[in-house]
């Protein structure tokens, strides 16, 4: 806006907004492909989340096992069994969040849901940029240079 003192036209503004949005979306996709996690999350955040996911399942498994042992007086057996089950659940939690299935237990149709989400976000952003840029489809090349 510094080259000439004329205020930018609405068309110009729409074009720039659209460019910025595109840029941001590309950035976000790049980030996502880097971290492998869900959008808007750094690699460290993602690692922390997976770690917590894993620890909590083992904690619950060991807790259940210890409680049952205490209840029935069968000292190590339930603890051993539920520790193993808890570890399996931990692996499953990690697998699910790593594969982007969400954190859902009993997740049935990951492909369909993923598609839905993707199309929803795409539709959203497309709607946004369309709404802003609809009036600025032509004749705004000379504004910037």
């Amino acid at each position, binding site marked *: 806006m510094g080259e000439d003192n004329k205020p930018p036209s609405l068309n110009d503004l729409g074009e720039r907004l659209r460019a910025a949005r595109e840029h941001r979306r590309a950035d976000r996709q790049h980030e996502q492909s880097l971290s492998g996690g869900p959008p808007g999350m750094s690699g460290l*955040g993602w690692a*922390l*989340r997976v770690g*917590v*996911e894993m*620890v*909590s*399942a083992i*904690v*619950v*498994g060991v807790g*259940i096992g210890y409680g049952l042992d205490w209840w029935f007086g069968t000292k190590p057996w339930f603890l051993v069994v*539920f520790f193993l*089950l*808890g570890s*399996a*659940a*931990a692996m*499953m*939690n990690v697998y699910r969040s790593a594969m982007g299935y*969400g*954190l*859902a*237990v*009993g*997740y*049935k*149709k990951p492909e369909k*849901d993923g598609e839905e989400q993707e199309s*929803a*976000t795409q539709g959203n952003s497309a709607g946004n940029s369309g709404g802003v840029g609809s009036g600025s489809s032509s004749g705004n090349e000379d504004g910037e240079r």
Partner: protein
Amino acid sequence: MASPIEQFKIQPIVPIKLGELDLSFTNSALAMVITVAAASLFLALGARRRALVPGRWQVMSEMAYEFVANMIRDNVGDAGRRYFPYIFTLFMFILIGNLLGLIPGAFTFTSHIIVTLGMALTVFVAVTLIGIFKHGLHFFSFFVPSGVPALMMPLMIPIEVISYLSRPVSLSIRLFANMMAGHTMMKVFAGFVVPLGAATFGIGGLAPIAMDVALTGFELLVAFLQAYVFTVLTCLYLNDALHLH
């Protein structure tokens, strides 16, 4: 020098004893009351004017509102609208609690696992009950993974149940661990300032101060991010209970 974890100590302000029960009004409770008051004040100030062209307060409270409303719409869909008040309250409570906890000398109640576990268990029980009321016994098909041979079921169902029960634990540990680790780290670096400065005529003290400045910015991000993560996971759990894949 104060210990880095002394900031998490719970001290009674108004001691109340009910028989064996210790119901004292503590600094943690005081922090929660201040948080609720701040959140109410923030939204009441924002909603006072109701201008078509909003002022600063109104923009901020509208942003908070829209942020949570969009989160619910994206993650739960239209069926989630009824639960907006609860999720919005949860978000504001955690967010403002985290942010107020960053004020030097203030108490961060989200750095106590019993607080976060209480919130997570409330969410967990509520979501489970919603699922059961909505789907009846069909809700328990949730624990039966698809595409698994019948022979494996006795093994898979307990694993799924444990995985489900681990939700409130992971939800509470995530928030508590992030807040506690961040505040401990800040205090540890702050503890270096005086000894290092005294040993090097004040020059060495600048490095931990710079680190603490950077950490404060980082903690602001974490405060927001953890409030967001807690609410977004609540939305995902609610979505599971409402739609049962």
